[in-house]
């Protein structure tokens, strides 16, 4: 010991303390079966380290939480990894805590004089579960928001005190800023303090009573074989810890980090599912309906917990041999079997439920879109604002509330007006020219006669008509020239004006046909003489704001792959393309989603 160390030791006694902490005799020898408890301590330290650094990025408010987690996940170098470790680390802790509980149970380590050790352990297990519950809400994304609704509603079913318990957690009658500040307080202050206090008691009691060796070990071996905790047991613990961390890191890499879904939308109808370790409770509730709800929410869980607390007092036989404890083994393992069965049932049901599968896909797409939109910054009004700012999403909304009654897209919508599947594409316009009376277009009342020309020729004409506005993707110059010839020198101009925007003829003016300006004027007033005049059947949509109109037109453009160019910027086109796929193809395959997510 050098002088500095000695000086320090004289004043702090730190060496003695470390020596005391490590110098524990392990009766019966160091064992791999003792690694679970220390493994849990390691995981708790890991959760604390990752949690603290994440807290320095997190903003606990309903408007900012999602944005701050988005920033952590997508804008920092290690955020996705640290959050992944923390997220999956919580599951690892839950698994390990259950393994630890069963190891302790099987070894009979709850028996006199270790009753309080067992009870503090059960409390710690509940604290871990509560950590998971409170942490799940914090990203304020769809999944966390809706899953936590289920949990807090369960709280509300407690007789008499239920509504008070619920409102103290929510910080009011509904989800809002106080819900998040309260869950945050629980997750980062109250629960860690509780966990550390009980852990301290748990460890102190463990040191007092020592390990409980394998029941087959003779008294003699227990007495004679004594290994020092350091390094014999510590080595095994460290190997386990490093193995767990490697597995956890591997899992995080394989999963690409923890999921962050789209911002919580209280108006959506998201099918909530809790985290996997609460699924059994969730499934149980399906069988407890009406007045029996309380059986699933309160009575069964309360009985299970009461049983765990009471176990060391019911099982008073000092023998640790499993054969002497058959009723208790049956009780505990049938409980486990019940939990596993309920979990499997819940998972199985969800894997078969087409609504859930669709919702998963939709949620993944929404999440990817949210990430794309958030890159430009999130307005201070909150995470959800990113969607309202996207013209395609707003456009789709406008379309759905105004146009869908009469127009179809991909088989959905009314039949009165033309089908808008692939609207404004080369093929769509060519098809219109081929037979305006087709059920896809203007049907029987159409005045314009079908054009009996080869399909290729019709495509030339379509190429010309669409190229007028410059809004056609990759126009073919040859086709445009051929089409121009056909349109301008053929019969079209007998009924249609082309070239002079204001000219009126029998049919609609085709100058800059289906361009942004044309559509805008048309939608505002299809009855105008330059369009359909008195023959028009479409209502005027002159109440739409400029923003809504622009968004609607962008959405209409997005319906076909030929009309993607709205802005000339490549970046925008790429984005449009992605939005096109996300808004149009709900069943896009994995490939597209991968591209989307990787961006």
């Amino acid at each position, binding site marked *: 010991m050098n002088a500095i160390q000695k000086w320090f030791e004289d004043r702090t006694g730190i060496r003695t303390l470390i020596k005391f902490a490590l110098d524990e005799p392990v009766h019966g020898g160091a064992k791999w079966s003792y690694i679970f408890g220390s493994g849990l301590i390691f995981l708790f330290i*890991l959760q604390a*380290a*990752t949690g603290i*650094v*994440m807290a*320095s*990025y997190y903003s606990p408010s309903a408007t*900012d939480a999602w*944005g*701050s987690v*988005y*920033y*952590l996940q997508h*804008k*920092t*170098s*290690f*955020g996705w*990894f*640290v959050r992944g*470790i923390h997220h999956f680390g919580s599951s690892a802790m839950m698994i390990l805590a259950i393994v630890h509980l069963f190891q302790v149970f099987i070894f009979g380590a709850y028996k006199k004089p270790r009753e309080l050790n067992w009870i503090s352990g059960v409390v710690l297990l509940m604290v871990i579960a509560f950590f998971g519950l409170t942490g799940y809400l914090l990203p304020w994304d769809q999944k966390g928001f809706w899953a936590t609704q289920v949990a807090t509603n369960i709280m509300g079913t407690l007789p008499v005190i239920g509504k008070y318990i619920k409102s103290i957690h929510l910080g009011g009658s509904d989800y809002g800023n106080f819900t998040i500040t309260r869950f945050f307080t629980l997750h980062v202050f109250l629960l860690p303090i509780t966990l550390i206090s009980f852990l301290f008691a748990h460890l102190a009691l463990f040191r007092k009573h020592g390990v409980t060796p394998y029941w087959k070990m003779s008294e003699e071996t227990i007495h004679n074989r004594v290994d*020092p905790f*350091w*390094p*014999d047991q*510590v*080595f095994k613990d*460290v*190997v386990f*810890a*490093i193995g767990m*961390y490697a597995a956890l*890191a591997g899992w995080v890499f394989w999963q690409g980090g923890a999921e962050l879904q789209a911002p919580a939308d209280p108006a959506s109808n998201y099918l909530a599912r809790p985290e996997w370790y609460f699924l059994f409770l969730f499934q149980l509730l399906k069988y407890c309906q009406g007045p029996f709800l309380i059986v699933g929410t309160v009575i069964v869980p309360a009985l299970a917990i009461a049983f765990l607390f009471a176990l060391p007092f019911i099982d008073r036989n000092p023998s640790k041999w499993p054969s002497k404890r058959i009723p208790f083994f049956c009780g505990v393992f049938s409980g486990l079997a019940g939990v596993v069965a309920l979990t499997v049932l819940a998972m199985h049901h969800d894997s078969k439920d087409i609504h859930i599968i669709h919702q998963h896909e939709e949620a993944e797409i929404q999440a990817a879109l949210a990430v794309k939109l*958030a890159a*430009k*910054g*999130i*307005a*201070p009004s909150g995470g959800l604002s990113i969607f309202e700012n996207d013209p395609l999403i707003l456009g789709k909304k406008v379309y759905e509330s105004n146009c869908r009654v009469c127009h179809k897209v991909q088989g959905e919508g009314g039949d009165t007006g033309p089908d808008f599947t692939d609207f404004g594409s080369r093929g769509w316009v060519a098809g219109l020219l081929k037979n305006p009376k087709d059920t896809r277009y203007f049907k029987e009342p159409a005045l314009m006669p079908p054009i009996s020309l080869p399909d290729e020729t019709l495509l030339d004409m379509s190429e010309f008509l669409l190229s007028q506005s410059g809004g056609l993707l990759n126009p073919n110059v040859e086709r445009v020239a051929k089409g121009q010839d056909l349109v301008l020198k053929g019969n079209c101009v007998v009924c249609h004006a082309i070239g002079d925007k204001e000219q009126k003829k029998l049919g609609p003016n085709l100058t800059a046909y289906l361009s942004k300006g044309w559509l805008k004027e048309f939608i505002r007033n299809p009855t105008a003489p330059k369009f359909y005049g008195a023959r028009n059947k479409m209502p005027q949509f002159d109440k739409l704001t400029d923003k809504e109109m622009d968004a609607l037109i962008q959405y209409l453009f997005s319906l076909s792959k030929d009309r993607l160019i709205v802005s000339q910027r490549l970046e925008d086109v790429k984005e449009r393309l992605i939005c096109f796929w996300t808004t149009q193809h709900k069943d896009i395959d994995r490939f597209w989603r991968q591209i989307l997510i990787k961006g």
Partner: protein
Amino acid sequence: MENKSRRNFLKIASHALGGTLAAGIAVPVVGLAVHPWMKETIFGTEDFIAIGALEDFPVGRPKKITITSSKMDAWNVFDGLVMGSVWVVRTGDNSLQVLSVNCPHLGCGVDWGEDVKKFLCPCHEGVFDINGQKLSGPAPRNMYSYETKIENNTILLNYKRMV
């Protein structure tokens, strides 16, 4: 004896593995903590902010204008934020200078004295000419100015870059 050397090995191995583990955790955790060293977290979204057309500024008469821009603050974007003010001095048909309103002495707001045709700092009587050159007073240097450029008759100002 055998036990002793085995335990020595275990001690060394535990230290080595424990150290590796600690490093494996510390790298991402510390890496995340020092993120602001590696990346700007608060910044204006525009490099050059349009402050008006050339003809808005008469030659030889400084005009004080407010700069508004948008700002990214981590995840949030704020539009139409007031960033501050500048003196725009049009020195010729196609030349101009944008000066900071803050005196290079202690940062007080500098005024234009139209009667004396000089910039005057009210705090410690600093005096600068129309180009921001120091004439008298305690200021250690000339007035700060900003990088500018003119595109399509629009004056663009790089508010991040003082020269």
